């Protein structure tokens, strides 16, 4: 008896994942975004095995070799080498680690802290709310990047510094979002009912309020992820982020800056990687936003049905109405 109940429950998550993947597959841009993200994640995790060379290995005999399709280029270095003869492809593969590590940590830390502050402010209201929101307002009005530069110049650059500083500078967006949702949801009857029958505040927050937050928080976190990737790249480019001998895409662009006239590939490929990563995540975020919003989902479903019907009737596809 217990087996009969357990079996479908155990199979269900896979079925749901499968359906979700199928849904992504039908949206071309989301499918593109997801595949790019999977490839980059794979490269980041298995960098030492994927990369053809050690990212720091210098070969002064093969300096500034262009990519393989140009003359003088060779298949030994598909994307060419830099001014110290290091393989660009290997450096790009290893560089993905810094971007993803920093972005994931910052989104996690800032997201958690911001969500807690937002829940606290929205749930307690009154003086707690006004103090927290005043802090948020003031911090939003501060020249964030300049203060980040100031802190880094005092504390010294590095990945840990960058994660801490970017987390401190980015928690407010989550707090604002969470607070506004909590304020609107608190008015609803089912929360009132839960409080009436004597649910503890913790239970109200975690089992009644938090589920409302998941989809907007997820969308915000994905968008923030791209912002942090760009911030990490910019800081490393300025020499205030990842420090050599570690690698990062932004750092590689900075290294190649002095060779702009003789070797365009030094700055082009790492920058291209940043761009493609951010574009892919943005495409996926767009899909997540539409998918988690019931109204948008309905619209998409209606469009899909209309398209199928048109195809079935073999009518010429009309204009963009």
């Amino acid at each position, binding site marked *: 008896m217990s087996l009969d109940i357990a079996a479908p429950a155990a199979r269900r998550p896979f079925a749901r994942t499968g359906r979700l993947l199928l849904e992504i597959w039908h949206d071309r841009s989301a499918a593109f975004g997801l595949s790019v993200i999977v490839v980059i994640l794979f490269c980041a995790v298995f960098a030492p095995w994927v990369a053809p060379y050690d990212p720091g290995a210098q070969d002064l005999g093969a300096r500034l070799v262009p990519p393989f399709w140009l003359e003088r280029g060779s298949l030994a270095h598909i994307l060419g080498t830099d001014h110290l003869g290091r393989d660009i492809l290997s450096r790009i593969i290893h560089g993905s680690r810094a971007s993803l590590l920093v972005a994931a940590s910052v989104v996690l830390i800032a997201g958690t802290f911001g969500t807690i502050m937002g829940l606290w402010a929205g749930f307690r209201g009154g003086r707690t709310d006004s103090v927290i929101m005043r802090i948020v307002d003031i911090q939003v009005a501060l*020249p964030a990047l300049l203060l*980040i*530069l100031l802190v880094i*110049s*005092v504390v010294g650059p590095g990945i840990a510094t960058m994660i801490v500083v970017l987390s401190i500078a980015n928690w407010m967006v989550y707090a604002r979002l969470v607070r506004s949702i909590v304020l609107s949801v608190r008015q609803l009857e089912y929360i009132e009912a839960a409080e009436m029958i004597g649910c503890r505040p913790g239970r109200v927050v975690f089992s009644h309020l938090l589920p409302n937050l998941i989809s907007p928080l997820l969308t915000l976190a994905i968008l923030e992820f791209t912002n942090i990737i760009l911030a990490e790249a910019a800081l490393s480019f300025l020499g205030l982020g990842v420090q050599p001998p570690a690698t990062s895409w932004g750092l590689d662009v900075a290294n190649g800056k002095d060779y*702009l006239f003789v070797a365009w590939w030094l700055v082009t490929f790492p*920058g291209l990687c940043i761009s493609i990563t951010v574009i892919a995540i*943005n495409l996926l975020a767009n899909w997540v936003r539409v998918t988690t919003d019931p109204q948008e989902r309905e619209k998409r479903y209606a469009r899909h049905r209309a398209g199928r019907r048109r195809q079935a009737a073999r009518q010429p596809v009309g204009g963009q109405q």
Partner: protein
Amino acid sequence: MGSYIVRRLWQGILVVLAVTTIVFVVTRLVGNPVDIMLPLSATTEQRAAFAHQIGLDRPILEQFGTFVWDAIHLDFGDSLWQRRAAMEVVLERLPNTLLLLVSGIGTAIVLSLPLGTIAALRPGGIVDRLIVGLGLLGLSLPQFWVGLMLIITFSVVFGLLPTSGIGTPAHIILPSIAMALPSLARLSMLVRSAMLDELNKQYIQTARAKGMPLHRIVTVHGFRNILAGFLTMSGWEVIYALAGFSVVVETVFAWPGLGQTALQAIQRSDLFLLQAIVFCVAILIVLINLALDIIYKLVDPRIDLN
């Protein structure tokens, strides 16, 4: 209106005070200015003399008092790198940054209105998709990389424009494009979605039904109603750029503005210069915010400021 401005001014003073406190805590308590600013080879006597000179041997509250007092008088000490008052350096570089802001963000603001509107007129059409695609690119490409790609294309390959520096009008073209791109993307997406919302409202359909030409609907009804939101966002773009994003563009193009100076101050461990820059930018941001609030109220009388 008057009491509102006073209240906002008070909030602005709070922000400036917060910046001053953060700068003080970071530079005096988290780090030690003597260690940061003097070279490793400095002797113990030199260190002690420098600490005495900038008042590090006084009680911490007295130090903070002096710090705030000096900040009010815009006195941030001498820049060790330039060997003159830090404020003097700031005032010398500020116009360059403002010039870049006006030409870069200004271009973005001017272009985003027509682009967003054209996209909103036929949602899902080919022009719309093109503009949305460009918007995605603008949001996704790192600014410093766009700058370098522009240099490679227009300066190295075609040799049309100078790579970096300041001087002739041609020097400002590439930095402005790099500066404008992300703002242009954000603003045109904003105009597009606001215009879409507005054009779907019933009174617009009434206007159409009675035969009002489209261009008049857009300019008379559409623009006027999205203007307040658009102005706020444009102001935020100026603030973003001022609050740090000009650092990247100015570094790429060796544009001698505040951003590049801030980075140079960091590289030369010139703490006093960096303090002066942060403080001045904070004041500018507060003033822009105040101006925005007032404009906001003038443009959209429905808004109740209290």
